[in-house]
């Protein structure tokens, strides 16, 4: 007879550990199965976690967690061929009223999983879940692994963006390339003093940068400051990148980005320490797969719970994991009813929280952007040109500059087009 737990959590990432902490705290016999050497060893993300959701799972986490830097400054970069326009917001409130922090998954998740263990969950690493087990009624009642079967009342699938467990259980079909981005990331070492100089930060202050534009593809880049490393990378929608018809298009795009004159100086003299890649669910609310079944819940990336527009993923993972855990506890308290009917409460919890409220609010934007690509590949150029003309001093009257700026605006998109775009975006965001 295989061993039995009340809860099996598949995956020792932010979603899985949050779920496990919740069920273990409530006294449920909880097992976390992690396929990596240690929790975090298979995980990768851009770079920031959000403080308040993290504190909701582990109160006062900052006292023990391996955080890299507290983000004091957020930046948007809009690239053109040899220029960029930068939008910067620096605010000490982000530090005082702790908003977000940079982290490295291999260190943070290891610590996070240890919090799961401290709360009573059992962590088993180097064990890959290969599928779910079902009883005669079709209810999920365990998992098969590369080390044998393990039974459970409820399985919480937090196995990340590939979501093989939920797929195997029949909750959803294979993902579509237009709904996912492939992201590549490089981690560079750079001495602390150089990071302070290059990014104008002191102590444990850090900077988070999002980068757009300058390319025909639908892509976004990122750069985050860690203690003595820099996280740098980019993601692009898979179906879009596939049109590039070159070997290793993700790396080609990252190489282009690295050689952009605006970025080159920042990365100068940095030593590459790690190169890796990951998928990002980008499709938002309209494509969210079923979140539960008889005996099963799905959280985090595996359920596509990511707000790609604002680079928010870990908070969605943690809070959806926590709600999945809460739902499992409810089910136990309801007399051990783990049917889909009972577990449907999970969806309600998410609908009432920022997780599905945010995704619902912005549900039209992913499709809107991918059908109006000029937001990403024409406007950044246009804004750069306008800024250039604005600052240029060449002995001609300013009136001429303004005329040229107007001309460029109207020829590139047209008055009606500009109005449509402004209104379209306004409606998608504010209405």
């Amino acid at each position, binding site marked *: 007879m295989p061993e039995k737990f009340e809860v099996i959590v598949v995956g020792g990432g932010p979603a899985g550990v949050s779920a496990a902490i919740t069920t273990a705290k409530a006294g449920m016999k909880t097992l976390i199965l992690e396929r990596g050497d240690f929790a975090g060893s298979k995980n990768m993300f851009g770079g920031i976690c959000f403080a308040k959701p993290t504190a909701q799972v582990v109160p006062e986490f900052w006292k023990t967690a391996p955080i890299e830097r507290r983000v004091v400054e957020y930046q948007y970069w809009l690239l053109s061929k040899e220029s960029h326009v930068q939008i910067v917001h620096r605010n000490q409130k982000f530090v005082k009223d702790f908003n977000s922090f940079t982290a490295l998954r*291999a260190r943070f998740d290891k610590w996070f999983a240890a919090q799961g263990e401290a709360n009573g969950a059992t962590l088993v690493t180097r064990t890959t879940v290969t599928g779910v087990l079902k009883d005669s009624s079709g209810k999920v009642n365990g998992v098969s692994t590369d*080390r044998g079967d393990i039974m459970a009342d409820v399985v919480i699938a937090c196995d990340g963006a590939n979501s093989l467990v939920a797929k195997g259980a029949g909750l959803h079909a294979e993902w579509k390339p237009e709904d996912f981005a492939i992201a590549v990331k490089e981690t560079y070492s750079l001495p602390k003093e150089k990071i302070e100089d290059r990014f104008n930060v002191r102590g444990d202050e850090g900077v988070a940068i999002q980068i757009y534009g300058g390319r025909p593809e639908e892509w976004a880049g990122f750069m985050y400051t860690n203690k003595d490393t820099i996280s740098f990378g980019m993601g692009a929608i898979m179906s879009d990148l596939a049109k590039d018809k070159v070997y290793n298009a993700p790396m080609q795009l990252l190489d282009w980005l690295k050689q952009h004159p605006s970025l080159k100086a920042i990365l100068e003299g940095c030593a590459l320490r790690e190169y890796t890649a990951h998928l990002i669910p980008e499709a938002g609310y309209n494509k969210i797969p079923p979140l539960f079944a008889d005996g099963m819940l799905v959280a985090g990336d595996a359920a596509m719970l990511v707000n790609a527009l604002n680079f928010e993923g870990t908070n969605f993972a943690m809070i959806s994991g926590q709600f999945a855990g809460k739902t499992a506890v409810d089910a136990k308290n309801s007399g051990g009813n783990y049917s889909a009917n009972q577990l449907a409460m999970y969806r309600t919890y998410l609908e009432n929280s920022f997780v599905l409220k945010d995704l619902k609010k912005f549900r039209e934007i992913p499709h809107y952007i991918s059908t109006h690509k000029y937001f990403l590949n024409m406007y950044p150029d246009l804004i750069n040109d306008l800024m250039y003309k604005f600052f240029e001093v060449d002995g001609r009257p300013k009136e001429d500059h303004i005329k040229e700026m107007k001309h460029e605006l109207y020829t590139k998109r047209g008055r009606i087009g500009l109005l449509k775009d402004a209104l379209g975006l306004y409606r998608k965001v504010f209405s």
Partner: protein
Amino acid sequence: MSSTTTEVKTPPTSQPPNLAQPPSTSTTPKKQELTVPVEEKLYLAKYKLDERPHLVIFDQNVCQKCAQINGSPQPCMILCPANVYKWEEGKKNVVSYDNCVECGACRIICPYTNIEWKYPRWGRGLSHRYG
């Protein structure tokens, strides 16, 4: 891939892969040199080999057909960030699964679901130091 590699690998090469094509395709793959070859970057990673390949092409004939329809490099070769897939002599999709960073892009982009995609067993494969 460092000291923990259980298999002796050939040293990294900056030569681009063989881009020979089937005669029926019209697209010319661009040979772009990367600043640092991907293989060199992958050598930074901690890696333990699972001797059983976790990536397997179901049917090479399907890859041939794909090359005829989509040109070469095929979608898996375009999207793979670790140069796992190489189109050799215009007829075989050679899978270097020990380059794999386990992202899953190839599985999703393959128009013919022709890649059997699993995770390596027992904690093997890539292990991040930073992540």
